[in-house]
C-alpha cells in the first residue's frame, strides 16, 4: 500500500479535539478580558494577575493542589453516576453531609487518631452513598426524574445538616458559626511544611486510579458503561440494570462522602460550612472538560483550581470580582460541549482525508 503523508481520518479527528479545546479556552479568556475591561482601567494587568497568580509564591501554588483534592473527589463521584446515564446532582449534598458526619466523629469519638480518621472516612462514605442513593431509588422504582429531585435534595441536606450541626456540634463559645474543635491529632498530616497540603492527596490519587480500573478493566465497569450507553439494550442482553444503576449511585455517593471527609480532616479543625461548598456542582464542569474519562478528571481539576486561585489573586490585586471565573468556565465548557463548534472545518478536513484515502487505493 502506498504510504501517504497526508492525515488519516482518525488523526484528523484527534487533531481536531485539540484544536477545539485550545480555541474554546482562548475564546473564553478573550471574552472575559473584554468584560473585565469595561469595569477597570487596567484589564491587562488584571489578566496577568489571573494567569500568574498561583505562581507568585510556593504557598499559593500549593493552594491550587489543595483545592484540586475536593474537586477531584467530586469529579470522580459525578463521573461514575453520570456514566450510568443518571443526571444525579446530589454529589454536592453527599459531600456536605460526609464532611459533617466525619466532623462529628472527629469531635466526639475516642480512640487512636488514625483509627478515628479511618472510621470517620468510612462513615462519611456511607453517608454520601445514602444521600446519592435516594434519587437513584426513586428513579429505579418509580421513574421519578433524578435531576430535579437531586437538586432539591441538596438544599434539604444543607438545612437538615445545619440543623444537626446546631444541635450536636456547634460551639457556643466560638465567635463565628463553628463546631467544637476536632480531637487532638485527628487531622490528615501536613506533607509540605509552610503549606496546607495534606496527605489527602494520596487518598485522592488512589481513588482516581481505582475509578479508572473499575471503569475500564472490571466487569462491573463494563456493565456500567453498557447500561449508561443504552439501558434498553443492557436490559435486553441480560444485564441487571437496576442493580447497576443503584450501585453506581452508591459508589459515586461514597466517593463524594469520602471527599467531604478528606477536605474536612485535611483543611479544617472545626466544621464551619454554612453554605454548600460547591464542589459537587463544579464536578459537572470537570466531567465535561475531562470528556468523561476518569483519568483526565485530576487534570481538569487542576485547571479549574488554578483558575480559581488565580482569580482570587486577581481580586486582591486588581479588585476584579473572582466570580469572573464562573463566566470563563461556563464559556469553556459550552464551547467544548458544542459538537458543532468548528464542525464545518472538521468536516472539510475529514472529506479531504477520505478522498485522499480513496485515491491512494486504501480500504475505507
Amino acid at each position: 500500500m502506498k504510504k501517504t503523508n497526508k492525515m488519516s481520518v482518525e488523526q484528523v479527528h484527534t487533531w481536531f479535539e485539540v484544536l477545539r479545546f485550545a480555541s474554546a479556552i482562548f475564546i473564553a479568556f478573550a471574552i472575559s478580558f473584554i468584560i473585565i475591561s469595561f469595569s477597570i482601567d487596567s484589564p491587562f494587568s488584571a489578566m496577568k494577575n489571573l494567569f500568574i497568580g498561583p505562581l507568585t509564591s510556593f504557598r499559593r501554588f500549593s493552594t491550587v493542589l489543595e483545592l484540586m483534592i475536593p474537586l477531584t473527589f467530586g469529579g470522580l463521584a459525578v463521573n461514575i453516576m453520570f456514566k450510568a446515564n443518571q443526571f444525579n446532582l446530589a454529589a454536592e449534598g453527599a459531600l456536605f453531609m460526609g464532611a459533617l458526619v466525619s466532623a462529628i466523629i472527629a469531635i466526639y469519638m475516642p480512640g487512636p487518631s488514625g483509627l478515628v480518621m479511618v472510621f470517620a472516612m468510612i462513615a462519611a462514605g456511607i453517608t454520601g452513598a445514602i444521600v446519592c442513593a435516594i434519587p437513584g431509588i426513586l428513579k429505579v422504582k418509580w421513574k421519578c426524574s433524578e435531576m430535579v429531585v437531586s437538586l432539591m435534595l441538596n438544599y434539604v441536606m444543607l438545612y437538615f445538616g445545619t440543623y444537626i450541626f446546631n444541635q450536636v456540634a456547634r460551639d457556643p463559645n466560638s465567635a463565628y458559626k463553628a463546631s467544637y474543635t476536632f480531637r487532638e491529632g485527628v487531622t490528615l498530616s501536613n506533607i509540605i511544611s509552610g503549606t496546607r497540603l495534606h496527605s489527602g492527596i494520596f487518598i485522592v490519587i488512589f481513588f482516581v486510579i481505582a475509578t479508572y480500573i473499575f471503569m475500564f478493566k472490571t466487569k462491573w465497569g463494563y456493565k456500567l458503561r453498557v447500561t449508561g450507553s443504552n439501558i434498553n439494550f443492557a436490559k435486553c442482553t441480560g444485564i441487571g440494570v437496576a442493580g447497576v444503576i443503584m450501585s453506581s449511585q452508591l459508589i459515586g455517593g461514597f466517593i463524594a462522602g469520602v471527599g467531604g471527609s478528606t477536605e474536612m480532616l485535611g483543611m479544617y479543625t472545626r466544621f464551619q460550612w454554612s453554605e454548600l461548598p460547591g464542589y459537587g456542582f463544579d464536578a459537572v464542569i470537570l466531567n465535561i472538560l475531562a470528556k468523561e474519562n476518569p483519568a483526565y478528571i485530576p487534570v481538569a481539576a487542576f485547571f479549574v483550581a488554578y483558575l480559581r486561585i488565580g482569580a482570587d489573586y486577581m481580586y486582591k490585586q486588581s479588585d476584579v470580582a473572582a466570580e469572573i471565573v464562573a463566566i470563563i468556565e461556563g464559556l469553556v465548557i459550552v464551547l467544548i460541549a458544542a459538537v458543532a463548534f468548528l464542525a464545518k472545518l472538521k468536516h472539510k478536513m475529514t472529506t479531504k482525508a477520505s478522498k485522499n484515502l480513496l485515491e491512494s487505493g486504501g480500504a475505507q
Partner: protein
Amino acid sequence: MSGVIDSIFSTTFLFSVIRVATPLILASMGAVITSNAGITNIGIEGVMLVSALAGVLASAFGYGSWFGFLIAILVGVICSLVIGYVSMSLKADSVLTCIAFNTMAVGGTVYFMYAVVKDKGTTIALNSGKLPSIELPFIKDIPILGEVLSNHNIVSYIAILMVLLVYIMLYKTPLGLRIRSAGKAPNALSSVGVSLLRTRYIALGISGILGGMAGAFISMGYVTWFSKNMTAGRGFIALAADAMGNSTPIGAALSSLLFAMAEALSYSLQITSIPSELVQMLPYLVTIIGLVAYAIRKNSLDKKKKEHIVGE
C-alpha cells in the same frame, strides 16, 4: 402551636401564598411551553437570576421600575435564545448547556453586582425600582376573598393572565400545534417543511419572557434589591411543577400553588419554636414528595388500566 394553625387559616396566609406563587407560576408556564416543544429547559433558574439583576440595574440607572421590567424581559429572552443557540445550533448537550449557564449566572451576577456597587452581597445601596401593587376595584370590597385577592403586585395578576394565555396559545393556535408537534413528533414538522429549529426558538423565546417576568418580580416586586443567588432553586421547583402538572398550563399552575403553600408555610413557621433550618427545608422537601407522589400515581394508574381491561 395553635398560633400557627390560626396563622395558616388566615387571609394573610392565603395572600402570601399568591405572592410566593407568582414567580413559580410564571417560570412554570415557561417550562410548560418548552416541555411541550421537547426541550429540557433547566436553564430557567439562571435566566430568572440574570433577569432579576438586569431589572434592578436597569431601573436604578435607567427610567424607573417599568423600564427595569422591560429590560428584565428582554434579558430573559436573550439568555433563553442564547441557550437555545448553543444547544440546538452548536449541538451541545442541552442539560450540560443549562448547567453551564446556571453556573455562569450565579457567578456572573455576583461579578456584575460587585463591578457596579462594590458589594458582593446585595445591591441594596442602589435605589432600584419597585413594581406597583394594585387594588382591584369591586373585588377589594368582598369580605375575605377581597383580602386574599386584592392589593397584589401587578405581576401576580399578570401571572394569572399568563396561565390563560399559554393555555389558549398551546391548544387553539397553529403555533401551539407546531410547538406540541415539535415535542411529540419532531420528524413530522420537518417532513412538512416547518423549521423545527425555528419553532423551538420561539418556544424558548416565550419562556424567556416568562422567566424574565419571574426574575423581575423577585427583585422588584416584593423586595427592591438583588442578592446573591436570590432565586434559591425556584427555577428547579418550576420544573417540578411542570412535571407534576403533566406539562399542561393548568396542572403546572396548580402544582406551583402547592409548592408556594409549602414555602409560605415555612415563613409562618419561622416565628415558632420549630428550628428555622428544618422549616427552611420544607419547600424543597415538599417538592421532592410531590414529584415522588406524582410518579407513584402515574405508575399505579398505568397498572390499573391494564388490570381493568383484562377483567372484561
